[in-house]
Structure formats: C-alpha cells, structure tokens
C-alpha cells in the first residue's frame, strides 16, 4: 500500500500497533481539514508491526498525549519534503486536559472550569493519578 510522502507536516512513527486510532482521537486529528493518513499494522523490523500517522500540515503536536499513550513513539517534522527535526517522546510528568477524572467525588467532576490534571505517580508502571483526588487514571 502506498501513501504519498508529505511536504510540510509531521509523521508520527513507531506507534505500537493498535494504538494509532487512540492517538488519532486524542490529538483531535478528525478536526483537521488537511490530508491525514492513519496506517495500521505496517511491517517493522524493530517492532514486528507498527502504526504510523501522517499529517500534511504544520501541526503543533501535543507530545504529552503521545508520551502518555506510547512513549516509544518518534515524531518527524517535515519541511519542504525533508526531515528537519526528530522529536523523542518522554512520559510526561503532568497531563493537562488529556484525561478526565472518573471519581464522581472529585472536585474536577463538579467544577467545569477546572483543568483536568493528572500527575505521573509511578514511572515504571506508567500510572497517573488525579492531581485533586489521587484517583488512578483509567485508560
């Protein structure tokens, strides 16, 4: 299957196979007017298979979201058909407005204007907890 290379935009590569759609949704790529390709189960020497997302426009990608879903992802920034930057992703210390706390007793469930903030509680197990009530994030 061939997907054209892009001139100006980003390529989100090395996505664990099966997580591409989740990233597509969390980044809100459905709202973009430009060409966006989500390619699933691409053969990969390193990973066996992987997902790739290509966005054909200058797009400020939220690396916190990528880090939260899959910190092994790489992001290539393309200008005039060439890779000008390779971003490595880390597990973010804090996530703002990416997840919502599911605890009905949490203040963030009542007060709509509060930002939804989660803090990294356990790096090894990739556990995030609500900043306000410490409830574990459900993924």
């Amino acid at each position, binding site marked *: 299957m061939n997907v054209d290379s892009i001139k100006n935009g980003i390529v989100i590569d090395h996505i664990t196979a099966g997580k591409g759609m989740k990233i597509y949704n969390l980044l809100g790529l459905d709202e973009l007017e430009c060409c966006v390709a989500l390619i699933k189960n691409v053969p990969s020497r390193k990973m066996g298979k992987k997902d790739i997302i290509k966005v054909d426009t200058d797009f400020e990608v939220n690396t916190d979201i990528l880090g939260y879903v899959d910190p092994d992802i790489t992001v290539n920034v393309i200008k005039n058909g060439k890779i000008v930057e390779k971003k490595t992703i880390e597990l973010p210390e804090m996530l703002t407005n990416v997840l919502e706390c599911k*605890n009905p007793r949490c*203040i*963030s469930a009542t*007060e709509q204007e509060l930002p939804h903030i989660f803090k990294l509680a*356990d790096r090894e197990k990739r556990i995030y*907890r609500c*900043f*306000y*009530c410490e409830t*574990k994030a459900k993924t």
Partner: protein
Amino acid sequence: MRSLIDISELTLDELDELIRTADDIIENPQKYAHACSGKKLATLFFEPSTRTRLSFEAAMYELGGSVLGFSESQSSSAAKGESVADTAKTVSCYADIIAMRHPKEGAPLVASLNASVPVINAGDGGHNHPTQTLADLLTIHREKGRFGDFTVGLCGDLKFGRTVHSLITALKRYSGVEFVLISPNELKLPDYIKESLKKEGIPFLETGDLEGVMPKLDILYMTRVQRERFFNEEDYLRLKDSYILTPEKLANAKNDLSILHPLPRVNEISVAIDDDPRACYFKQVLYGKYMRMALILKLLEVNV
C-alpha cells in the same frame, strides 16, 4: 505563605515541632492566650461537622483570635453556584487563615491555589484529613512516648476513611511500624496506598478477622462506616455493623493497647469500653484542639 492540604507536606521535623508546641500549650496555656490576637480564622464547612469545626474554633479562641464562617453549604454562596476558587479569593479578603471542609475531594487544594492566605484542609470527601492525623499523632506520642516500633491495627472502613489514609501516610515514615488492615472486602484500603507501602517495603497485613490479630496490636484505630460515603443505602446497611468492639473482643488484647477513634462513633465501639484505661478517643479530641492551635501558629508564622 504555606497551606496544609496533605499530611505528607509536613516533614518529620515539622511534625516534631508541632508536637513540641502542642506539649508546651498543654503545659503553659496562658503563654498562648493572646498569641493570635487580632487574627481571624474562617471556617468554611461545606459539609456538616461538629468536632472538627468546633475544635478549630476553640483552638483559635484559645489563641486569642476570632472566628467567622459557615457550617453548611446551603448558607454559603456555593448554594448559588459559586466556585471553590472564587470563595477562596473572597474569603482571603476577610480572614487571615482558612479551615475548609468540603465533600468533594481536592476542593481544599483548589482553594489553596487561589487563596492569598493559608488554607487548612479540614477534610475533603473520602480523601484526606490531615488535622485529624495531627490529633492522632499527638495522642500516640502522649500515650506511647514514641513513634515507630509498634503494630497499628486499622479497623472498619479503610476504603473511604480519610483519617486512615492520612494516618498511614504519616506513620509509614517512621521506622519499625507495621500495619494490620482489618476490614470487610468491600471496604479495603485503596490500592494506591497499598502500592506505596509495598514500594517502600513497609510491612502490612490485610485481614477480616479483628479478634485473630488483636494480641499483636499496640494501637487499634477504629473507624465508623460512613453512611455519607455510600451511593447505595443497601451497601451501607450491609456493612455498617461489620466490626463492633466489645469488652469480649479485647480479652486477648495487650494491657498497654491504645484504642483510638476519630469520632463520631455510631456503635462500632461499645460504650462499655469507654471507662477502660486503654480507651483514648476522648483524649484524642482534646489533643486535636492543641494540635490545631500549634498548626495555626505555624501557618500564621506566629512565634510565642
């Protein structure tokens, strides 16, 4: 400016300092009688409470300060839909320090991020209750004369019992503390606290059998199954009488056991135990006031 939202914000040295101050207040109350003269404490209680609110108010009065506030959300602007942040900003204009109880977890934290005066968490839902822990710690200090090298049994509602969560957070930092967690299956300690105990190598045992573990315990911390934490009345009714401490259940207990309870109690400690010298729960109430006095002095940076 400093607030107190979670007991872990206080270092062990600061806890020692608060306990020393509380000891000194007990010995020399007159020395502190005008320490907060001209200062005002706002008690913002969005949820009913007798003990904690009166304890804060008594503490401030005994320091020579004054008190303003409300004791239920219906008599505050929250009833009109005001946010916690706005309430905190507003009350900062009237008071020098705020004590807030709120049924929503994290509300005092939000208040502290928006207030321009110190905020004390006086209980937020089933989450934290650090000043109860201060009361518990002073009780343990005065009863045992030490922190650490003891086995603490925590019994009852360990899931929603915020006093339990805060006490474990505080005590796990001392060496030689072993926890025995006694609860029905549905009211077990939340995973995140157990995770932190495991991670730090602190021994704990989970059991449903209070009498079986009684001989091991140096401290028994009883809690009430709280009706207000249940969405379902049936669950509450099924679990409320899980553990009732009676003189018979104390038959195998150590002679120097200390029985604590954050109160109010419903029926989980038989009144027949009140006169037992091992019962410390009413002393605990008094100690709570002294620790709140010590905390108010610290957060207002008043040196006596």
